[in-house]
């Protein structure tokens, strides 16, 4: 048994996979943390992001890394519209989101997820497609690292760091943070709560759709209308692991999940690895409901 070699490899791939998981979940985290709403249709917007990268590659010939910013701009607009269409009615004039409003947003975004995924099946067919992007591999001894995965991992961390800097260091960012703490506080600094909430939602969507583009590197032909059904639950687990609203929580959660999936596979079946990756949510919720990050 060349166990060490195997484990180093698994760790490296798990970390890179974890990075892309993180960025995919990060958009959900922003919206959940600030607006306190869980978007059940999150997976569908990842899927749209992935298709965005696919079509941009098909028609404009650009790589997923280049299509991420384009997606982000589209995501901003989509997120803004999403806020006013789905959340505004429930959130306006409220200090905290009530359980009832939470149910309404759950149900409404659930309907949206049905709608989008089925529309996508009609328009794109169930035929999986993919983006061909392969800039080569990097070799460290026995470790071969695909450059595409490495680039994506780096960009993912940059995106998360970027949103963190934005929220910490800019005026709009601090207003958004104020909103997440206390809605009335935003009014005290002279901002309209709805504007702040819609901005945060738009930011979340931008990250989500950019993440969808980055994800295409890992699913060379796995872009299909139903892919959201896998990545939405993964995102839920990651955000709960890291703690909603903690910007670095996405990274911690994503890396945990990525490493968990790859490392458990080294010792048990892949099915058990995936089952464990999902089930880890339960003990975390029981023992550390605020996430594993302090």
């Amino acid at each position, binding site marked *: *048994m*060349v166990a060490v*070699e*195997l484990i180093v*490899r*698994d760790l490296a*791939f*798990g970390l890179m*996979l974890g990075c892309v998981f993180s960025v995919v979940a990060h958009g959900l985290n922003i919206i959940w943390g600030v607006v306190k709403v869980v978007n059940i249709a999150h997976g569908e917007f990842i899927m749209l992001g992935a298709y965005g990268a696919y079509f941009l590659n098909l028609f404009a010939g650009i790589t997923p890394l280049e299509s991420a910013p384009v997606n982000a701009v589209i995501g901003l607009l989509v997120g803004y*519209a999403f806020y*006013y*269409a789905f959340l*505004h009615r429930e959130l*306006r*004039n409220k200090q905290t989101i009530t359980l009832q409003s939470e149910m309404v947003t759950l149900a409404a975004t659930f309907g949206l997820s049905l709608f989008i995924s089925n*529309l996508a*099946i*009609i*328009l794109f*067919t*169930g*035929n*999986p497609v*993919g983006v*061909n992007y*392969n800039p080569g*591999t990097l*070799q460290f001894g*026995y470790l*071969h*690292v*695909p450059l595409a*995965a490495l680039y994506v991992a780096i960009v993912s961390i940059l995106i998360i760091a970027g949103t963190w800097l934005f929220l910490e260091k800019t005026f709009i960012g601090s207003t958004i943070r104020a909103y997440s703490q206390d809605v009335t506080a935003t009014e005290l600094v002279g901002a*309209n709560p*709805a504007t702040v909430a819609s901005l945060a939602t738009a930011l979340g969507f931008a990250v989500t759709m950019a993440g969808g583009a980055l994800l295409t590197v*890992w*699913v*060379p*032909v*796995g872009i299909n209308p*139903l892919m959201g059904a*896998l990545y939405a639950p993964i995102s839920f687990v990651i955000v709960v692991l890291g703690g909603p609203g903690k910007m670095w929580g996405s990274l911690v959660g994503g890396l945990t999940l990525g490493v968990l*999936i*790859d490392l458990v*596979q*080294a010792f048990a*079946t*892949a*099915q058990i690895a*995936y089952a464990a990756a999902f089930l880890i949510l339960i003990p975390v919720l029981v023992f550390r409901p605020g996430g594993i990050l302090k």
Partner: protein
Amino acid sequence: MQAKPRRLAKRTTAIIVIAIVAIVIVSGGGTYYYINYVAPRPISCTLPSGRDAIKVGFTISLTGTYNVEGSKSLAGIEAAACWINSNGGVTVNGKTYNIVLDYHDDASSSSNISPLYTSIITQDHAQFLLAPYSSGLTGTAAPLAEQNNLVMLSHGGSSDSIWTKGYKNVFGVLSPASTYFNNAINWLKANHLGDKLAFLHSDDSFSTTASVAASRYAVQQGLTVVYNYSYPSMGTQDLSTQLTAAQVAGADDLLGGGHYADGLKIVQQLSSVGWTPKFISLLVAVTEPQFQQQLGGAANLVTGPSQWETTVTYSPASAQTAGIPWYGPTESQFVDYYSKQANAGSPTYHSGEAGAAILVLVNAIHNANSLDTTAVRQAISGMHIMTFFGQFQVDATGKQSAHSMVLVQWQNGELAVVAPAIVTSGTVKYPYTGS
């Protein structure tokens, strides 16, 4: 404070209006795009007049999980039916009939199967049945064929378990899943008996059946299996763990896979883990032209099993060599009829097996010279023929026993049929060299 909510309401209205306009534009554009580029349009096959109809009923998955395979199958059925009707129809007792298709979309859902088949049987009065696409749906439909005593031909259900239930009216046209890798293993046995094999497959029913049967068959044939592993069909981001483990286990050759994405992922990740197996054979993916486009050099010399390829060369002459009758269109005639349909693309093996099902049925009706279920059933049981899809003969359970899978290999951008010998357009090239 009064002004604020009103401003918001105005903005909300504006956004709702924009959203509605956007929805209208998107759905209008989407519908246009769908109708012109996505929706398959069946052949406008003019039915020769003055004939009665033989109604063949079935459901097919035009939406849902199996929509791609279902659409390809339907196009194959349409092509075969059109060929029959344009080439003399079906003659029973001196009377000529047209084949008329009566089908409904089952949306890939088993809850639609029994209502739809019941209505096909009791209201539309279909005389013969085809099974739906996929083993699961076929399993749901089969009891209805038994209950109503109608012949049903399975073209998309390859699971061996369908044939263990004692159905007397259900017959398979395609090779069962358990035989998919036989060609590859036979070739390895003949040429590289010392190779150690690794199996890595998706955990869905079809891939598991195929790979488990193959590894058993390989051991029987005296080959060594050093690695055998299944991975979840739903998340295939990363198979490098398993590939490394297979390499570490000392494997020379790699067999397995699952769906299209799986095959692609496996070949892609081989290079990233730095393993170059000598021989690779993967389910489903390899036969797709995209496979080579996506992978480029890495696809070269990858092999895979196929029920049928447009390049296989079954012909009336090969039927004569085999000493069995030929029925139906030739390869090129079938492709020709197939291509008359808009948005149908080029035929895949799903089209081939589905088209063959209609041909087998019509040939059996000819042989029986009757439309009676019992007579046709007996005719099918005793039939051994060749169509463009290959041979047809069933065993006592109704399972296909004569049809042979083919082994294909990408060779310099071309998909060559490399086994079995009777239909080859090239020979297996060994070893695989990577990109």
